[in-house]
């Protein structure tokens, strides 16, 4: 299935990444795999359809909750790149709104990937249940909808299901690249916010190293 990209495809990627950096504040690195799999026209079709779905979810949930859904849909699929990029974007949104750090650091994505599903849910409840009950309820509902039988109850459930489908589609190619990722959303353009967040997070990590307090450990190495 793997093939070398053509000269024209490589040239397109250089231009597309430059444009992405200027217009969105970031570019994705699995564009190569998308083009390898689907060709240039397929890439455009994928980009248009996924952007439309993302915008629909942002319109329904807001940017912060969208990144929560995108991050944990990708995490469930085992895609560290998208999980990292959306959890980082989620962190930036929360930091912008509240001036506080979100309880889940994007650097923890690799540890979360190792947890069994029930351990992940328990960890999220312990971290978010008290401080961010609305966000915890949404991500818990996403886990429930994933395994739900029969018709879904509400418009919100149908949108949550769309978030799951969207990231099954996105992760099909993003699984070929590894974290770290840039913040995967419009907030990536806010360089000043990114710098302030990075400084605050670095300080929190230093404090955590001084006094580690693991919430949950995986059952296996």
């Amino acid at each position: 299935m793997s093939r070398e990209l053509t000269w024209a495809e490589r040239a397109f990627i250089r231009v597309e990444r430059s444009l992405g950096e200027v217009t969105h504040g970031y570019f994705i690195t699995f564009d190569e795999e998308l083009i390898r799999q689907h060709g240039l026209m397929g890439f455009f079709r994928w980009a248009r359809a996924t952007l439309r779905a993302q915008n629909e979810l942002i319109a329904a949930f807001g940017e912060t909750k969208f990144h929560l859904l995108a991050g944990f849909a990708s995490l469930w699929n085992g895609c560290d790149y998208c999980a990292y990029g959306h959890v980082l974007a989620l962190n930036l949104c929360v930091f912008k709104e509240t001036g506080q750090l979100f309880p889940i650091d994007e650097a923890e994505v690799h540890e979360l990937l190792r947890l069994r599903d029930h351990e992940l849910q328990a960890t999220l409840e312990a971290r978010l249940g008290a401080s961010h009950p609305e966000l915890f309820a949404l991500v818990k509902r996403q886990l429930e909808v994933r395994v739900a039988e029969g018709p879904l109850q509400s418009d919100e459930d149908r949108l949550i299901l769309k978030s799951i489908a969207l990231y099954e589609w996105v992760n099909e190619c993003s699984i070929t690249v590894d974290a770290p990722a840039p913040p995967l959303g419009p907030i990536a353009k806010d360089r000043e916010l990114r710098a302030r967040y990075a400084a605050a997070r670095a300080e929190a990590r230093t404090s955590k190293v001084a006094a580690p307090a693991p919430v949950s450990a995986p059952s296996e190495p």
Partner: protein
Amino acid sequence: MAANFVLKSSGPELKVDLFGVLTAQAVREVLSAITPKLSGVSACIINTMGVNDCLEEARAELVRLQQAVAARVRRTAWVDDRARFRGVALWVMHLAGDPNAKAVANADQAAKWLASNELREAAAERRTVGA
């Protein structure tokens, strides 16, 4: 700790339980063991719940394993309740070019996938665009 595996045949279904650390050699041994058993099999379940680690060197062998299974078997489900190993499975089936394989979290989801005719990426696209 060496990897180990158990094969269970039940009519048209073959179940492969993997354990321990997946090395390239261990995966080659699995492939050798299942190849003669694929005749008449229409569904394969690869259960990695007992796997502790998957070495980088094993990944290319897992792709060969998936390609060998896909050439003879209609549907495959990889089962694990850890995201990390669902990710390994997705990477393997993507690189193997098998749209009839899917990574799932439990036996119920595996049964549902094996009984369906959906193609993994096409189904995700359809549900994204049309949902």
